[in-house]
């Protein structure tokens, strides 16, 4: 059971003067229980890719298969796919419409046919996961702070209990604490066996939290692998619009001079390696 993207290509306004290639021959497999980060600069096709994963967009060529179901098939399948692939859009707090947090979060599961106690249970489970106190249930979501609103919006997707969770730039506009909390949430979701697909432009964040990373540029895959593999690949190629984390650049230099053995973007691991090297020198 996995989410498979095979040779996916998509062009906006084909045949018109405004034609724009958004995706070209993109392929990858996302497994349950892993965090896959899709990293790319603005306009690289990240969001277009996200909309393909739950069938909001249907591939013009290639295919997207979720647990054996093709997104390019009948509407019944599409419903099942959307239920199992939760999509959190950029600035998800903008989708809030309900009068209470409870109503907002129950929107998804209610649409998928949950009623009564089972529905209530899902709502409180989702709130618990995202770290919202039960007292928030009857609060007006429009009066919450920005960070709380975003948590409500993410909870409203979690409440459908998706097995794949796709998040488009979930950290945009969050402060440092917000980013840390969200990272922990993504970790705990993947530990529960959910496949987390995290779309971002922040390579440093991706290197530090992901199991695997897919780098796309101008709609095409330029690198795909574990954070370590990606670190090695990026020492040889330059990806347009991608800023290397300072720690990673530093570790390239240190490795070149032979001071450390392993590339890393984790400051603590780098410090440890430097310390070990110092001891060796004595």
């Amino acid at each position, binding site marked *: 059971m996995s989410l498979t993207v095979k040779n996916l290509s998509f062009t906006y306004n084909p045949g018109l003067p405004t034609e724009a290639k958004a995706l070209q021959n993109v392929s990858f497999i996302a497994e349950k229980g892993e965090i896959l980060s899709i990293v790319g600069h603005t306009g690289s096709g990240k969001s277009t890719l996200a909309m393909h994963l739950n069938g909001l967009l249907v591939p013009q060529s290639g295919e997207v298969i979720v647990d054996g179901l093709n997104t390019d098939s009948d509407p019944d399948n599409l*419903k099942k796919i959307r239920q199992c692939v939760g*999509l959190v859009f950029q600035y998800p707090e*903008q*989708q809030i419409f309900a009068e209470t947090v409870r109503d907002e979060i129950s929107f*998804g599961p209610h*649409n*998928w046919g949950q009623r009564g106690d089972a529905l209530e249970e899902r709502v409180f489970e989702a709130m618990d996961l995202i770290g919202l106190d039960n007292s928030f249930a009857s609060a007006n979501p429009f009066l919450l702070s920005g960070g709380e609103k975003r948590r409500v919006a993410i909870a*409203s997707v979690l409440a459908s209990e998706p097995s794949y969770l796709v998040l488009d730039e979930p950290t945009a506009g969050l402060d440092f604490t917000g980013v840390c909390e969200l990272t922990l949430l993504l970790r705990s979701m993947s530990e529960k066996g959910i496949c987390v697909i995290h779309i971002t432009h922040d390579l440093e964040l991706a290197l530090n939290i992901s199991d695997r990373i897919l780098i796309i540029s101008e709609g095409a895959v330029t690198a795909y692998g574990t954070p370590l593999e990606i670190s090695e690949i990026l020492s040889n190629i330059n990806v347009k619009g991608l800023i290397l984390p300072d720690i990673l650049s530093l570790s390239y230099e240190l490795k070149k001079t032979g001071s450390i053995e392993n590339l890393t973007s984790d400051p603590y691991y780098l410090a440890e390696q430097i310390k070990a090297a110092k001891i060796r020198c004595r």
Partner: protein
Amino acid sequence: MSLIKGVTLGQYMPADSFIHKLDPRCKLLITVLSMILIFMSGSFPAMAMWASLIIFIAKRSQISAKALIKSAKPILVLIIFTSLLNIFFTGGSNIIFSIGPLKASVEGTITAFRMGLRLYLLVLFTALLTFTTSPSELSDGLEAAFGPLTRFGFPAHEVAMMMTIALRFIPTLFEETERIINAQVSRGADFVSGGLIKRAKAYIPVLIPLFVLVFKRADTLASAMEARCYRGGKGRVRMYPLTWGSAENKALTAFVVFSASVISLNRWM
């Protein structure tokens, strides 16, 4: 989503032509004059001349016949409907056929044809204006045109500014609507099945976030305008002032000569 795909608003087609470069006030004036004159010319030769003028302008401003006809399509239904009414209700002695109390006469058919053709020409002529003038030029032109009315308390600048802002935000709002619809569909919202009331209700989760966004946008825009000391039209100067030069004089003269000949042709017929 497919719901709002393919909606094109405003039909400005940028091109490098004499017509495109004309002062919007000149184009507005010519359009208003032609609207009056097309209504005054009832004879078929006069209408043929108007049609040839429309074709000439379209050619000069690189607008394809297809685009022009397509733009007038929505109005065509209305024109056909009025023409049908004309056929049956004009009265006349030469009856072609009758359905119950409805009688179609030769006179009625001719009137209907005349009326329909005139309306169609009218729509095509105004379409030329929107094809060759960008929305911002158009509102500049309107502001200038309504300028004299400010003396009687008509807020010409404010109306033009409102038009510009509205036109500017239509594409943005479409984009935002699309995003909200996508987000709600991802959470299982269903806009297609069920009866009318159920489907109307399904749009509440789209409309509320949209209104919230619109108000926020309006607030931000107002602050941004205030921060740059916007105080309405008084004492405001333009970055690109409208200029009435020899090209405008030529265009207007040519139009006046053309319409004079059409009017005399119409009289003489």
